[in-house]
């Protein structure tokens, strides 16, 4: 499997993105993924990131990043402006996830979302045995300092996609560096969905 800066979800995402396309990365951090896609797949990439220090590093890397809030910052973009809109490891931190997901499909032909699976067995065991908010490698925070404010599972996303009439074109489930094929809601740590509007 491809390794992009040691982040497995990046590796998967970079396999999902067709070469020569236009990509928007929401919560793009320091722009590593966009720079990689530009250098290896000739992707025309843009990013949105709130943290100033990250934005500076991304722009210094030659990636065009807009410093702003992705929850309100999508409204400016025209409809279907991008081939892919990526949201990696950020969905669980947004205040209004559904608005963000709908916004992604408004401005992009396809969305790619990667998130930590709250249905993973370690999370369930942690909660069951300790009776406290689960703390795992995947969710290493205490309840009071966690940036994660919405917890979702693989099944939760599937259900939402069905309710909203989104077409899930690809689903990839990861545990460690392996792809998971059986019981993904229980076995996968990270889920990646490629989806489009109806």
């Amino acid at each position: 499997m491809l390794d992009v800066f040691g982040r497995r979800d990046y590796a998967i995402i970079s396999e999902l993105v067709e070469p020569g396309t236009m990509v928007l990365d929401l919560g793009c951090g320091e722009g590593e993924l966009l720079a990689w896609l530009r250098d290896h797949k000739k992707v025309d990439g843009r990013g949105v990131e709130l943290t100033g220090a990250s934005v500076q590093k991304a722009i210094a890397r030659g990636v065009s990043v807009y410093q702003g809030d992705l929850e309100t910052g999508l409204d400016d973009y025209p409809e279907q402006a991008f081939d892919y809109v990526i949201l990696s490891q950020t969905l669980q931190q947004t205040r209004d996830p559904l608005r963000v997901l709908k916004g992604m499909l408004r401005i992009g032909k396809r969305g790619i979302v990667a998130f930590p699976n709250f249905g993973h067995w370690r999370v369930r065991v942690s909660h069951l045995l300790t009776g406290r908010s689960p703390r795992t490698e995947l969710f290493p925070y205490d309840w009071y300092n966690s940036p994660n404010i919405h917890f979702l599972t693989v099944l939760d996303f599937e259900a939402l996609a069905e309710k909203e009439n989104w077409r899930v074109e690809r689903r990839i489930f990861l545990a460690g560096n392996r792809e998971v094929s059986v019981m993904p809601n229980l076995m996968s740590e990270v889920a990646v969905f490629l989806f489009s509007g109806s």
Partner: protein
Amino acid sequence: MAAVKLEFTPMITEAATSTFERLELDCGVTLSPVEVAYETYGTLNADRSNAILVLHAFSGDAHAAGEGGWWNSMIGPGKGFDTDRHFVICSNILGGCRGTTGPGSINPETGEPWAMSFPVVTVADMVRLQKMLVESMGIKKLLAVAGGSMGGMLALEWAVAYPDSVGAALPIATTARHSAQQIAFNEVGRQAIMADPDWNEGNYYGRKPPARGLSVARMVGHITYMSDASMRAKFGRRLRAPDQFEVESYLQYRGSTFVDRFDANSYLYITRAMDSFDLTQRGTLPSLFEKIRTRFLVISFTSDWLYPSYQSLEVVSALRSRNCDVAYCNLASDYGHDAFLVEVKEQAEIVRGFLASTHA
């Protein structure tokens, strides 16, 4: 064209003046001839594709880099505008008083200084003259245009007026149009100058200039360039003398030295050009950016209350609505509007990286 080789800096620096036969102005008047003072740094490459035009702010001049250069911290070998890779040009603006034709120049028809008979000039006129200068160097397309404050307005004007001649635009701490607050401060400066009896309706050349008025105008200007935080840090309530605050002494010093290098009538003409600049008069901002291929790097500063970040965001929002290639950063700084001149470390890194990924 006289070229003077300057020896004090390791980069290749030239200071020169070009003369053009005529320049048609927005007001309908044709200026003839027109002189432009400029400096260049670095070397123009064989296919003339590495030129960057740096645009000075209201009171700046062509001396951008080298000792005493207003953006020396940004321009030079290995700096934000890297003269090892880029050919950097800076020219004094039309209406200025630092070598380019302005109200203090001699009107060839009368043999006297123009003074207030100098025609009204606009930001678009200034850019048109710069275009002539750049073309005279055999440069069809600039790799980038960059400037802060009024220089940022010129950068925006360049991108909108000559989109095919600008690879990238870097409008910094600027706006597409002045707000009431910005116009108000400029008007205080103008009134201070015109209230000085020595101004004499603009006819003071060869006599005592309106030093008190111009000095007060500059003092107001300096207050708007700083922030509450930077003034607290720099002056606080410290005393310079038993009956004089440090801040009073600083402003008076800034005002009095400004008089030595700036012409009061240029102050009137240039601030008027800034106030009348309004890109939206030509159409909504999104419509102006409709077919633009120019890349943008827009920078604002958190403590800049003279050119607040919402003004930069207005431009950025319009660019994004047309899916233009735009990077935007609101840099953290306590220096107020002055930040684009002094908060250089982060700005230089950003500019360097952005330019490295820009191709003419």
